[in-house]
């Protein structure tokens, strides 16, 4: 089974600043996807950004971008110009091509300080 590790249980950032959340994964597969999800206090899981393993270019969605290092099996999320609404739990996820199975990290709780 694949494993996903988020080594930062908690992070904080000043409003308008930039923060990077770390994620590493372990796999022997070559065709996979990686995702970041946000879970605010409402508990709803929200897809933030995705990255296809075969693409070298890092994905970007507005203020959210990733640093995908395939050889290092690293997939970090950068949030620029942090806003109060970014405060949430963030989960890194790996999607295997085998039966479309997903594996999640344990999450990073992000606090945004006004």
């Amino acid at each position, binding site marked *: 089974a694949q494993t996903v590790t988020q080594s930062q249980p908690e992070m904080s950032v000043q409003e308008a600043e930039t923060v990077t959340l770390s994620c590493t994964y372990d796999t022997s597969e070559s065709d996979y996807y990686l995702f970041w999800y946000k879970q605010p206090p409402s508990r709803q899981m929200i897809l933030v950004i995705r990255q*296809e393993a075969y693409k070298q270019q890092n994905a970007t969605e507005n203020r959210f971008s990733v640093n995908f290092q395939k050889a290092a099996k690293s997939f970090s999320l950068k949030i620029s110009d942090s806003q109060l609404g970014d405060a949430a739990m963030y989960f890194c*996820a790996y999607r295997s091509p085998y039966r479309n199975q997903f594996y999640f990290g344990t999450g990073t709780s992000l606090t945004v300080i006004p």
Partner: protein
Amino acid sequence: DAGITQSPRHKVTETGTPVTLRCHQTENHRYMYWYRQDPGHGLRLIHYSYGVKDTDKGEVSDGYSVSRSKTEDFLLTLESATSSQTSVYFCAISAPDRGQYFGPGTRLTVT
């Protein structure tokens, strides 16, 4: 928002009673999943389905069973609920080449 709902949204039950949670989708996606979320553990896969009547176990399947008799519905059953199954349960669907979309969650308390 993806068309995925869960019922009930909240449930309190007693130890030893059977419980069934329902997940319903309107997206006609092939893959459906049940997860539980507990503090410090993130999301852990209980069971998943890759088609009607096609299901398989996840990492925490003991004490749970599932059924999928039609594309839109995926049922999770706790045959005899225990206090360790107190958790928040999420259903998810997966679109091809995309991520998963989650239901709103069900908070289950076993007393």
